[in-house]
């Protein structure tokens, strides 16, 4: 290029002008920034409030950063982080926890009590005063009781524990209704596993931190587990926590989930055959003599063939797996190569401590409970029960039980009624018990009861953190079923599908605005009691459901009021913490270092509390976020095994007892044990019924017409049904696909090719129960006969964002259930895909 003098000056001039221009732009930029800064909330005084998250049931401790504006004096929550003192979260947090701010400041929250104005389901409301709303509830409940129909009041609760649970159950008992229903079906099934094998009706918890080998059958360890924070930390620890040792994780499930992706080995298995696979592994362990002889001999029942007092010989677990579950046969059934079965079984016994997990996946088929029993039997074979790195049971904080409720005549009459859902545990009474002999709550039976009005009509329903019209398949498709109940009260702070059918909505505070205890459940061994306290004062005219319940009870008067005599929820909360303070055990949450020091003292026999009075205790709890007792009595077998034999039972005498009692009573099914088994759709006969075995799974839909299996997952960001309205989470619904605001159906490329479907095509996903229009995404990590959809989005109500994206796979799920457990079989539906 030739540079002329003139050209040179022209060029430099342009540079000078550009520089001057840049300066002007800079000045404009400063102005602009100042304008945008003005949109920020005012600066102010910073504060941190220790509380407990409630975006899922994990119970993680959080610290909420608040800013109290200097100019306007308003306290705002601006950030949520993990509480470093809380033993579950230890300073970390999951995406849902952070997004809690968007629950607190949800633009679509309910701002006060509402009365239905239009027809049910229309979503037209008219504000009422709290006094009027409570008076309406009291009036209805009083009438119901006076008519002798107290038992027709239903309580449906999802995430509820601690004092709120106690209060609600107390209210029901004093009022006279046996019908407390739970939407948490996963917990229900987990409890029954321990009930049948260990004689305790508690969910299984896992000491993951200390495991060296985790064999997981469809457990969503790194997606929707409890608590996600603790499980992720345990995973990190398993991998890189101990120098020179890297623990192994093996995931068995039909799809390469996030957990499977992070596992050392992913074993795709045919849907519903997890139990058979576990038993084939047991076959290898038993035939090669790799099991923990000491534990099996001393602490298990029914391993060898045995003879009962009457002289009959019964089948033992050893003979069962040796005869029925040869790896060759199981390999054909499960699609898992023989070598893999043998190798994993050997690894499982060679690496100690090893633990087998059975949450979600394996339990969501019609044979769910038997699958869980088979998988838990693996833990017994290697002695990983109540040992570090094995299964544990959650200890509870030392709340003293509240005084027994005085039941008046109406309550006694009401409580004598059978449960509406026919759940048979623990009473095993009523006709329905034949349907659900182990369930303490059996929601799959409720739609039928509402439809037929049998055993009786439901006249009132309380909804507390439950949204069956979204989360229970049959109600998802037919929310009108709820309209059979003439009076529905919802306590939801947010609009939701079920509340649309309510007559009254009495919105609770969000969890960032209220006082509550949060004892963790099914998460870990040690007892942990978090204190949820308001980060900011309530923003709207909402009211603590505990307080509302107390006011309703007071309005009803008599024994109901006497059962709930407190002034408000705060009073009963403090009273319960007083018990904990006086229990002379545990410690206020603190740093790991301080904890170690206090534990050493405790081991030496000194319990040196940091508090002298209750007020000191309370202040410290409020500052640090809670109380916990790190001690866990590993190896306390008397506590862990409360079966008739006092041991772990391969052969479940509890199950035998319950089924035989039912058979003797000869309810509607008739025909003794045979009749009972037929009513429960159990195909096995003889001793196998009471042993872990593979029960052929049933599926909704004809195999030819609907050739694919539908499975679901709860991705990390949607693990509760309430987070779909949080825009932060909707932008990242699934890390696997990383597509914002999109819920798609995942399909194997080979299957897609056969159907002529390409990545991103719109398709119909159709089951016998319904169909959804979705985008298809091709994924190598899914078995050819399976398709997958995430659960948690696609709401019909719940706010501007929630209603704008996603789809609800529950619309497709057919009515199958694990009859024995009384839980819905969410993965038991066949589907087909057609191009739009």
């Amino acid at each position: 290029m030739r540079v002329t003098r003139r050209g040179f000056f022209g060029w430099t001039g342009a540079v000078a002008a550009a520089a001057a221009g840049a300066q002007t732009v800079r000045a404009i930029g400063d102005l602009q920034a100042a304008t945008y800064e003005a949109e920020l909330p005012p600066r102010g005084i910073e504060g941190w409030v220790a509380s407990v998250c409630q975006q899922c049931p994990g119970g993680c401790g959080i610290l909420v950063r608040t800013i109290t504006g200097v100019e306007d004096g308003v306290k705002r929550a601006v950030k949520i982080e993990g509480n470093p003192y809380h033993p579950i979260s230890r300073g970390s947090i999951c995406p849902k926890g952070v997004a809690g701010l968007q629950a607190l400041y949800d633009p679509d929250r309910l701002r006060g009590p509402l009365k239905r104005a239009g027809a049910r389901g229309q979503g037209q409301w008219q504000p009422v005063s709290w006094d009027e709303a409570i008076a309406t509830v009291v009036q209805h409940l009083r009438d119901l009781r006076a008519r002798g129909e107290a038992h027709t009041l239903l309580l449906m609760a999802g995430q509820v524990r601690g004092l709120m649970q106690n209060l609600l159950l107390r209210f029901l008992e004093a009022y006279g209704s046996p019908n407390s229903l739970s939407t948490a079906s996963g917990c229900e099934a987990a409890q029954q596993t321990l009930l049948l094998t260990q004689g305790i009706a508690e969910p299984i918890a896992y000491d993951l931190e200390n495991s060296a080998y985790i064999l997981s059958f469809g457990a969503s360890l790194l997606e929707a587990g409890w608590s996600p924070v603790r499980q992720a930390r345990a995973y990190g620890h398993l991998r890189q926590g101990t120098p020179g040792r890297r623990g192994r994780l093996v995931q068995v499930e039909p799809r390469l989930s996030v957990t499977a992706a992070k596992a050392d080995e992913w074993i795709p298995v045919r849907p519903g055959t997890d139990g058979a696979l576990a038993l084939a592994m047991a076959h290898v362990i038993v035939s090669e003599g790799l099991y923990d002889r000491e534990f099996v001999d001393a602490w298990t029942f029914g391993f060898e063939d045995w003879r009962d007092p009457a002289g009959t010989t019964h089948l033992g677990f050893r003979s069962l797996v040796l005869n029925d579950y040869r790896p060759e046969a199981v390999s054909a059934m499960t699609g898992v190569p023989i070598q893999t079965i043998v190798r994993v079984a050997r690894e499982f016994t060679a690496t100690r401590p090893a633990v087998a997990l059975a949450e979600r996946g394996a339990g969501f088929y019609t044979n769910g409970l038997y699958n869980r029993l088979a998988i838990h039997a693996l833990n017994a074979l290697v002695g990983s029960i109540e040992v570090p790195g094995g299964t544990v049971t959650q200890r509870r904080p030392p709340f003293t039980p509240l005084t027994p409720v005085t039941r008046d005549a109406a309550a006694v009459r009401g409580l004598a009624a059978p449960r509406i859902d026919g759940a048979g545990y623990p009473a095993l009474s009523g006709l329905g018990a034949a349907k659900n002999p182990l369930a303490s709550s059996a929601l799959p039976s409720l739609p039928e009861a509402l439809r037929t009005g049998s055993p009786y009509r439901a006249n009132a329903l309380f909804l507390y953190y439950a949204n069956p019209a979204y989360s229970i398949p049959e109600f998802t498709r037919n929310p009108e079923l709820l309209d059979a109940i003439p009076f529905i009260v919802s306590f939801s702070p947010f609009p939701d599908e079920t509340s649309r059918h309510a007559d009254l909505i009495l919105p609770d505070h969000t969890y960032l605005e209220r006082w509550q205890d949060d004892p963790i459940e099914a998460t870990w061994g040690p007892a942990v009691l978090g204190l949820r306290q308001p980060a900011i004062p309530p923003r709207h005219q909402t009211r603590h459901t505990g307080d509302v319940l107390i006011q309703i009870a007071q309005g009803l008067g008599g024994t109901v009021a006497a059962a709930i005599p407190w002034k408000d929820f705060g009073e009963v909360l403090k009273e319960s913490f007083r018990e904990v303070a006086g229990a002379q055990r545990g410690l206020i949450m603190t740093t790991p270092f301080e904890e170690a020091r206090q534990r050493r003292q405790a081991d030496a026999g000194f319990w040196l509390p940091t508090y002298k009075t209750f007020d000191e205790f309370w202040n410290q709890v409020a500052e640090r976020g809670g109380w916990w007792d790190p001690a866990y009595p590993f190896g306390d077998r008397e506590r862990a095994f409360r079966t008739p034999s006092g041991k772990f039972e391969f052969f479940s005498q509890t199950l035998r007892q319950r089924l035989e009692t039912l058979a003797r009573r000869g309810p509607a099914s008739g025909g003794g044990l045979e009749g009972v088994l037929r009513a429960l759709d159990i195909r096995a006969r003889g001793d196998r019924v009471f042993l872990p075995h593979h029960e052929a799974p049933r599926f909704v839909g004809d195999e030819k017409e609907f050739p694919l299996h539908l499975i679901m997952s709860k991705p990390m960001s949607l693990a509760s049904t309430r987070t779909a309205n949080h825009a932060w989470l909707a932008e990242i619904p699934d890390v696997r696909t990383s597509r914002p605001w999109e819920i798609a159906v995942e399909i194997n490329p080979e299957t897609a090719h056969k159907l002529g479907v390409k990545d991103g095509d719109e398709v119909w996903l159709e089951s016998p129960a319904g169909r959804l229009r979705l985008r298809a995404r091709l994924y190598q990590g899914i078995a050819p006969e399976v398709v997958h959809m995430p659960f948690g989005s696609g709401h019909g109500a719940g706010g501007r964002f929630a209603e704008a994206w996603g789809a609800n796979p529950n619309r497709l799920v057919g009515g199958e259930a694990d009859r024995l457990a009384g839980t819905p079989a969410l993965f038991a539906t066949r589907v087909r895909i057609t191009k739009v």
Partner: protein
Amino acid sequence: MARWGMVIDLDRCTGCQACVVTCKAENNVPVVTPREAQRGRLMLWMTVIPEVEGEFPRVRARFTPRPCMQCDHPPCVKVCPVQAMTKSPEGTVSHVFARCIGCRFCVQACPYGVTYFNWQAPTWPKDLREALNPDFAIRPTGVVEMCDFCHHRLQHAREEARADGREVRGEGEYVPACVQACPARALIFGDLDDPNTAASNLAHSPRAFRMLEDLGTSPKVYYLKEG
């Protein structure tokens, strides 16, 4: 002077995306509409990139968290015509929004794709505006934004340290929001020049590598391989 850097242990990372959301909250990063998001205008200063390889049943998937790489030789700083992209004496790259003219040279220059352009003015429903972090400015339309290792948190830590008459410690006192949140402890942060910090030790681990190292950008974000 500290040279702040981050180590990301891919063996610990579970792909939970807590880092992604906490970053949005900490830095007032706007949410874009689904339509905009589909056009690739999603703003995630920290993001987790999924990769899948292999064919059924032998498939592997990997998740890689990706913040700004905080290069020692940052291409974005070199191309910025108005010195909006700057590198501090400590080596942290940050962006002065008020200077940005929206030319997007940095967006083109960055090999990691960590700079984001505000195609629209950020909007929040009135209620959600309450939750904005008052420590950090909102960006107007036409301005680029990116991760700066939560520089305002460093300032915060520095003020506290100054009150004690000392420098900010190389570890523990100042961490970006994503590091604070990580439940699997996959993100480790500290002074890379201080041999006593976990971050500097891990950065020298045989498992350590940096993204697109051959470009000569010398990122201060290190990754640790799985296994």
